[in-house]
């Protein structure tokens, strides 16, 4: 009798797990309706840490493109080639997509050490390991961040001189909501539509000769950690202007390049606002 009592208690307590199953019959996806970006809307920086010899990385790049399609201007993806899979130039993989700032970010945030591919969405979560997210988590993170309003607006005005291959970028940072923290402005260049080798474990053959690399971070104009915007407290209406110049590498194709600017909290590295524009009209 005693045995039976325990037996039934045991079954009763855990019988609920037999109901613990959700079967999705389809559709498996739902349509996301993203409101059109207002003039000074919030924009999200998505950093995809990748490498041309990383066989799983094309899945992350596809996810970035899928999200770009959905969120449009409100999402700014950049591909940062860094770590083991990006630094191996053996065989057909002769193109160097790495950059000084990208390597330093990777070493600092620990992305490639955690296993490519992965990324950061506005660098939220640092310094806990939560800042490194799998590509399957990006949509959720982007969606969460877009629920809040923009605190900053950034305007980028590039001026490219084709004859001298030189570029001048003027940025205007406007504070929309008071912020009590030091801020850093980062300006980088990205290039898309670069055709070069990429490993893809899902492809046959796995070395793809004509892979299109997009949003590749080429260079930072503001060092690895940006330039200080000069204050420790920022009030609504504050406007800060900056100018940066450089000569483009002759291998870069200006018509496929964008300037990406983002402002981050200097103490937490969290990105507060981002902006992107093509350097040629």
């Amino acid at each position, binding site marked *: 009798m005693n045995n039976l009592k325990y037996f039934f208690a045991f079954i009763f307590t855990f019988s609920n797990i037999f109901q613990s*199953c*959700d079967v*999705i019959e389809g559709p498996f996806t739902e349509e996301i309706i993203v409101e059109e970006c207002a003039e000074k809307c919030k924009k999200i920086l998505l950093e995809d840490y990748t490498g041309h010899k990383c066989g799983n990385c094309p899945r992350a790049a596809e996810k970035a493109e899928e999200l770009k399609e959905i969120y449009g201007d409100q999402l700014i993806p950049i591909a940062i080639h860094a770590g083991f899979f990006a630094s191996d130039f053996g065989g057909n993989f002769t193109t160097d997509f790495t950059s000084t700032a990208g390597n330093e970010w990777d070493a600092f945030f620990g992305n490639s050490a*955690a296993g490519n591919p992965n990324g950061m969405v506005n660098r939220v979560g640092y310094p806990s*390991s939560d800042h490194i997210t799998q590509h399957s988590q990006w949509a959720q993170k982007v969606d969460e961040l877009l629920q809040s309003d923009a605190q900053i607006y950034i305007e980028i005005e590039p001026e490219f001189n084709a004859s001298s291959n030189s570029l001048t970028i003027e940025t205007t940072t406007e504070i929309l909501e008071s912020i009590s923290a030091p801020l850093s402005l980062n300006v980088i260049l990205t290039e898309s539509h670069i055709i070069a080798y990429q490993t893809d474990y899902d492809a046959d053959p796995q070395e793809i000769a004509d892979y299109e690399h997009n949003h590749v971070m080429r260079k930072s104009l503001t060092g690895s950690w940006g330039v200080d915007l000069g204050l420790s407290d920022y009030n609504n209406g504050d406007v800060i202007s900056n100018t940066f110049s450089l000569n483009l590498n002759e291998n870069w194709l200006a018509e496929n390049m964008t300037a990406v600017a983002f402002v981050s909290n200097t103490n937490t590295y969290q990105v507060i606002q981002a902006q992107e524009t093509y350097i040629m009209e």
Partner: protein
Amino acid sequence: MKKVLYGLLFCSGPLFCQGIQNGHLSGNFQSNSQLYYEDADLGITSENLPSEKFLINSFANLLYTTSNFSAGMRYEANHNVLLGFDKRYNGEGITYRYTQFNKDGLDITLGNFYEQFGSGMILRAFEERNLGYDNAFDGIRLKYSPFNGVYLKSLIGRQRLYFDKAEGIVRGFDGEISLNESFESLSDIKTQVMIGGSFVSKFQKDLDPIYILPENVASWASRFSIYHGKWIMGAEYVYKYNDPSATNNFIYKEGQALLANLGYSQKGFGFSLAAKRIDNMSFNSDRNLGGQEVSINFLPALTKQHTYALATIYPYGTIANGEMGLQADLNYKIKKGTLLGGKYGIGILANFSNAYSIHKAPINEDTAIGESGTLGYTSDFFKVGDDKYFQEYSLEISKKINRKLKLIGTYLNTHYNSNFIVGYGNYGMIKAGIWILETQYKLKPKHSIRTELQHLKTAQHEGNWAMGLVEYTVSPHYFLAIQNLYNYGNKINKTHYPNISAGYTKNTTRFALGYGKQREGIFCVGGVCRNVPKSNGFSLSITSSF
């Protein structure tokens, strides 16, 4: 007095103390450390040398047990973790603690625990320290045997993720019945039958704005095993409902796994046959974490586990998204006193294993195989796919020549498809033949010398390897070993990997000091793998228990 004091440490009141005094306290400690150096031959420069130069993994377990109560804990300190281990293990803390007691036959565990249902293909939590693998549960587990031969287990908890826990909650129930124990009329018959079943479900909130994800993913399994004299046979089938995850590229197809085995064993002869089919069976506590992190289940590799250095270069790692394979093992001893067996007999071990892809076909004309947000693909259960992942056959012959000398000769032939097995990158099908000769010679009582000569021949990847080892042991306290691996067939860099190590053991405490070079590669146990980076330096290992 010592025992009473220990008992009092765990007592919180007089009632609770009943039955837990006069217990036994035991524990163990292990520390592995390495000092890293630059090495021009290996391409290790100051830039890729760990900044700390010195890294250490260490832990200690404490366990207190009485007749019906036990409690324990593990403290880990990794400052910082050795190269090749995930850096998220950096730090220190209590990573395992539990209490377990048995009252009226009900066994209750609170806190951390390891567990396995059936073969583990539906649920297995275990630790493999050499891999940096630990998916222990933190929660509650109950075990109960309501009738003779009926064994029930249930659990709920979250799994370890480095120094944190996975997001998902795992619930599980397992029941097993031994017919011969349960029914008196069957107790004396020669055939022993056991049947069992499991149900496991995980919960993880759906916060994804694009996919409609199942928050509760369930899996069930059924199994049997039959013992009849020298024969044993068994099988387990696992079915998993839709579980879109990072590993399967967010497809909604069901998962299936089947493992069947047949074995025979008698003195001097035995064989076993095993076959498996795995389809979309990655099952993780967190759908966003790929690979081996917080795995709820364990998918066996079904290949021979090797210990010889060159035989471990191309190990098979299970491909959870789909594989079919089989393994056959044979052992036979040629009797002593026969023409072939001679004075001491000859031992023969033979093994064959392989793994292929499974058949996959698109679900319709417009959908690519494995496309996210779809049912992924269809698969004919009994049809083998086009790709061979792995194949190996091996033969080991051991012969005792006289009272002092024993020889063990081994040949392995391995086909390792590097395009699919995680580890080395795209070198295609690597075909390797490996010859090994081990000698064991007793010089005098307590003094023995062991040597290994190994050779790996392959035209692919890094080419040929040779290896030699000499180990001198003075039982039970000392050993000294010198070995060298030479990658002489490498077209880019013919590298030597010399190592020297020495050890001292006193009772239950062991020190081992080594210096040398470590080749880059992949290390696997049972199909679970980790990358091992190249290194050069001193290593020190200390283990102790009481």
